[in-house]
């Protein structure tokens, strides 16, 4: 694999209200790579994901983020999305009355318009949707259901992967997409991610457990503790964490 960076995070600091949460993150993700971020609850994993997606509740207080050479922090959330940054939400949101297929088409067309392409033809879209729903093993009836409304936890996560599969983002960020999933669903998430394992894409996968990484072999694993990356390694690090837990890092962080 070449070393074309997709995402370059340097000394990133961010706070919520007056509380500093991210306290100097350095991370580079190259094209074709899958990175896993692990760490104890409350260490700042979701904060990092949300800061990258542009959520306004978080204030960046220092550092920089470059995305394909551009200043990411300069872009609005919708511009980031249109530029190919996708966040699979830890808690996907319900939108009553808006059908899943309409929502997806609107999202896809927003990206296409940004790229100067015509809106997708309705028939072509239905074909694409059918194919991707099959890929994520979702019943076609979910097309016409309102976005995430009344979906089970697992169905919501699957729906996030469906959106990712249709939008084919350059940078996919998955925030604990694996939590609460059964083995079948984990396999689908992993397949969704693996489909993006090409020269044009990169994946940042936030997870609390090592379980997902059995299906999805990351190129790099980082341990986030107290808003800093305490350690980086290969997939072996994930296994080690599984065995020992995060206790060692808690000591390191408070030292």
């Amino acid at each position, binding site marked *: 694999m070449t070393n074309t960076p997709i995402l370059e995070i340097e000394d990133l600091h961010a706070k919520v209200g007056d509380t500093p949460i991210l306290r100097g993150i350095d991370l580079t993700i190259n094209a074709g790579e899958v990175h896993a971020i692990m760490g104890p609850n409350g260490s700042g994993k979701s904060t990092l994901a949300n800061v990258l*997606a*542009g*959520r*306004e*509740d978080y204030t960046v207080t220092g550092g920089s983020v470059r995305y394909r050479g551009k200043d990411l922090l300069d872009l*609005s*959330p*919708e511009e*980031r*999305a*249109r530029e190919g940054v*996708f*966040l699979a*939400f830890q*808690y*996907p*949101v*319900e*939108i*009553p*009355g*808006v059908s899943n297929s309409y*929502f997806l088409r*609107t*999202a896809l067309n*927003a*990206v296409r318009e*940004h790229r100067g392409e015509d809106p997708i033809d309705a028939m072509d879209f239905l074909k694409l949707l059918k194919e991707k729903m099959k890929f994520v093993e979702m019943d076609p009836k979910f097309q016409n259901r*309102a976005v995430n409304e009344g979906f089970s936890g697992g169905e919501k996560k699957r729906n996030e992967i469906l*959106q990712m599969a249709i*939008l084919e983002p350059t940078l996919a960020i998955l925030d604990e997409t694996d939590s609460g999933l059964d083995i079948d669903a984990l396999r689908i998430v992993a397949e969704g991610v693996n489909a993006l394992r090409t020269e044009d894409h990169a994946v940042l996968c936030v997870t609390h457990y090592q379980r997902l990484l059995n299906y999805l072999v990351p190129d790099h694993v980082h341990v986030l503790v107290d808003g800093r990356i305490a350690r980086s390694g290969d997939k072996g690090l994930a296994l080690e964490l599984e065995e020992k837990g995060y206790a060692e890092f808690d000591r390191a962080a408070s030292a």
Partner: protein
Amino acid sequence: MANSATKVEELIDREYEHGFFTDIEADALPPGLNEDVIRVISAKKEEPEFMLEWRLKAFRHWQTMREPQWQNVHYPAIDYQDIVYYSAPKAKADAPKSLDEVDPELLATYDKLGIPLHERERLAGVAVDAVFDSVSVATTFKEKLADVGIIFCSFSEAVREHPELVQKYLGSVVPYNDNFFAALNSAVFSDGSFCFIPKGVRSPMELSTYFRINAANTGQFERTLIVAEEGAHVSYLEGCTAPMRDENQLHAAVVELVALDDAEIKYSTVQNWYPGDKNGKGGIYNFVTKRGTCHRNAKISWTQVETGSAITWKYPSVILRGDNSVGEFYSVALTNNRQQADTGTKMIHIGKNTKSTILSKGISAGHGQNAYRGLVKVMKGADNARNFTQCDSLLIGDQCGAHTFPYMEVRNPTAQVEHEATTAKISEDQLFYCMQRGLSAEDAVSLIVSGFCKEVFKELPMEFAVEATKLLGVSLEGSVG
């Protein structure tokens, strides 16, 4: 998250797009109201004696009435002597006989509103009556409708050409003394639409009226009367716009529907009167009485999308007189900036096995105040009457308000009346979720709102549903940013 509230507010700032004024010569009376003014209006319209008598009776009664105070809206006192009660586009001595004789300025106005009156340009299958200020300026497709016996014309024309029908049905649903605004309308109404669908006829096309207020200081008092004889079917659409003006303008209309045995009337409204500016200056005061009577097995369905007006006061109602008759009310009311709406319906169950459905969706943004007020009344003889009411409110930002006032009076033990109500807010999570998928904040709000309104929109005729969706988007622009 202090900035989420302001963010939500900022999106609500789009300009009213129908706010232009047409410079056209008008034949208007000076402001003020007395019996002479009523006589002049009646004379100008060459009305038969019974009409003038009816107007005068209404006026005399109106003088004994007080403006209602119970509704949840606030506005400065209206000076009824400061209003112009008659204004008509000055035309040739005779009314235009065809569209070619209509003032081109007027046709251009309707074109600008997206309502081309030329038949060749019309969407296939919609007949239009256009009412400009107080006068009907054109009715399309008349001949084609006449072929099946349907009368669709301006109210003035109906009074002249079909006085027996007008005399029989006028005031039969909304009597001249019904309420303050209905009495005022009965005294001074200048025009409106009249539809008569004879026994067994299904209207081959949608009928529609577009109302436009143009002149300043002019009250608009139209009257619409739709009669569907036994087994007749009709779908009727009503659209409304007005120029932007700093003064408030009064609109007090009356709509009466008569559905005889087995008849069906579907009445859809997209009301987009000028709502006033951001600070509440200007805008239309919309005080409207709409009511229908259902005879045996008949059905009346009101669908309304109310996005305009500074104040909306309106309760389209159905009197379920005949056994097995059905009444429906589907409503979307949006208030933004300083708009106030107090709207809802009345379903009066008199016959046996009568059914009514009420679905109300209120959207409040900015400092908008939105109230649902509904009455379900089941009379003694209404065995097995059924009502289902659902009232949902959606709040955008935290300076607006939603209120629900359901009233129920049930005098028959076999009746079943159900009421459900919900209130939700557009959450920052929903907005961010949509934006993370590439939608702008404005498109995200429109999407969420249209999802909220979906069950009502699907009751609208196709073209209107599209228009209504766009209108909501426009009315909400600036509500988040």
